[in-house]
């Protein structure tokens, strides 16, 4: 009995303490309120609305009154002829992107860091960083123009006496064009992240290496690469989360009837099923499947990274 009372008293006391803590800084909570409202309305409410994936959505009934459909739309998706094609396309584009896009910014950053001519390295850094700011629409338009029959690439091929290639018309070119234009646009940006990590390495290490007579190459292998390893691991974990979320904005613009069988990915399919054909529930189910798999992949990769390299997101 007395124990019960003291527990209650303790709870009361701690509630009072918490209340006091909150009241003392009430102005901080007022500041936090608007962003939190935005967060709940525009990020968390859609998470609540994703229940239409389990319902037969009827616009006149609304989200919460539409009848339940269980896993109908999920099994519809798993059994559809599109399923395996979408998964294969999405994963192959993602893996190709990671394989091609990951090492180049690292090499670029290391070379920029070692470059003795500061003016040259600043220029290279500034120019290679610039394409990051080109919008997706403009980038795809540039690709279209450059690969067109009268575009730069075919002009050069003709000049060299080679046959012209219909790049956008051949589906076998699609993935490579998508990936390498992505590298072209993003390598400079990503290299800045590694440069930041490289600049964080203690200069004492380089001093010691210089005294020991290490070559530049050895310095890179034994100081630079271990130094940026945590950053590399973090970025790899992050890119693993987007294996299923390939850049639909760009892919959608690059799609044409000739390459659709290799360029249709989950996210563009979600858009077409959902907003073009207005099958809201089916599209939400596919989207939810996509998000859940991404979340699981991220968690697994994060745990593996934690075990192997002792670097992780959480």
């Amino acid at each position, binding site marked *: 009995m007395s124990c019960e009372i003291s527990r209650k008293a303790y709870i009361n006391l701690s509630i009072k303490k*918490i209340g006091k*803590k*909150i009241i003392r*800084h009430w*102005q*901080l909570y007022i*500041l*936090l309120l*608007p*962003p*939190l409202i*935005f*967060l709940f*309305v*525009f*990020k*968390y*409410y*859609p*998470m609540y*609305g994703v229940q*239409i994936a389990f319902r037969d959505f009827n616009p006149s009934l609304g989200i919460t009154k539409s009848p339940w459909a269980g896993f109908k739309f999920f099994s519809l998706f798993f059994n559809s002829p599109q399923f395996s094609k979408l998964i294969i396309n999405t994963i192959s584009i993602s893996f190709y992107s990671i394989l091609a896009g990951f090492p180049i910014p690292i090499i*670029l950053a290391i*070379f920029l860091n070692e*470059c003795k001519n500061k003016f*040259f390295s600043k*220029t*290279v850094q500034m*120019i*290679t*960083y610039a394409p990051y*700011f080109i919008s997706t*629409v*403009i980038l*795809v*338009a*540039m690709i*279209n*123009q*450059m690969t*067109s029959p009268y*575009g730069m690439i075919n002009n050069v091929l003709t000049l060299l006496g080679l046959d012209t290639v219909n790049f956008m018309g051949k589906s076998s070119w699609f993935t490579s064009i998508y990936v390498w234009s992505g590298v*072209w646009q993003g*390598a*400079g940006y990503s290299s800045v992240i590694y440069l*930041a990590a490289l600049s964080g390495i203690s200069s004492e290490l380089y001093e010691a290496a210089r005294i020991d*007579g290490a070559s*530049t*190459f050895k310095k890179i292998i034994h100081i630079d690469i271990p130094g940026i390893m945590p*950053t590399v691991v973090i*970025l790899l974990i992050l890119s693993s989360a987007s294996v299923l979320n390939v850049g*639909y904005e760009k892919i*959608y*613009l690059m799609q044409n009837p000739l390459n659709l069988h290799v360029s249709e990915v989950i996210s563009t399919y*979600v858009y077409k099923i*959902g*907003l073009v054909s207005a099958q809201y529930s089916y599209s*939400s189910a596919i989207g939810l499947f*996509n998000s859940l798999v991404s*979340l699981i992949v991220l968690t697994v990769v994060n745990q593996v990274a934690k075990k192997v390299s002792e670097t992780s997101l959480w």
Partner: protein
Amino acid sequence: MKLRYNRNSGFDRVFDTISTMFLAFCLFIVIIPIINIISQSLSDPASVLAGRVILFPIKPTLIGYSKIISSKVILSGFFNSIIITVFGTLISVSLTIMAAYPLARKNLYGKGVILLLFTFTMIFSGGLIPTYLLVQSLGLIDSRAALILPNAVAAWNVIISRTFFINTVPDELYEAATVDGCSDFKTFFRIVLPLSKPIVAVMALFYAVGIWNAYFDAMIYLQTQFKYPLQLVLRNILISSQLQAQMLASQATDQSAQLALSEVLKYAVIIFSSLPLLILYPFIQKYFVKGIMIGAIKG
């Protein structure tokens, strides 16, 4: 000592050569397409169609650009994009800083939970359709606000700003402010904000570039053509090849001349729409690098 140095200098020279060659290669790979597009946009249409333009303009003309200046769609796109970007950036930056400052304070009760609420949105989302239905039920379809509000707060930017506050405003400053009788509001407006001009600039640029470059939300939410932002107008012109007929109307002499003109026009549109960026880039570039640096420290 000297011997060792000599042993390595050969390796180092080879390394330097490889490194310089690689960097020069990167430089050319990035710059050549851009030079080519500028040259194509300034060239005589017939030469463009004949595939003769590689690095330098041939028979320079401004015909493509003159077509753009007289195009109402592109100019209204520019105007819409400016409005959307200005308001969107204003809202986003305010909300981001308002979220980041309290979360940077040590003695905020429930900080962990609130941070988790933000970061969770980075790894999971309701998806396209639930967001669309929300925008619809808020009556924002065909409204420019639909391009601003749903993504107004980006969790990653909140985290970067928070890191900036933690690193630049020491706890002692808050303590001193409290001792002097400053309220949290006053501390924020009088002490923290004046110190945080760099992060405000970085955030403004991050958001502004993001909003300026987006087309997808405009494509799904807007229906009325005069509300289209520039990127959507560009998509219709450059990728769906719409609207060109009306821009080329008077020139419709024969088919190949029209095709040639439409090619030049496309190149000119690419350059014209990138002009604001090309002009501003050298000045804003260092702020972006700064922003990434802050983010990288956290990572």
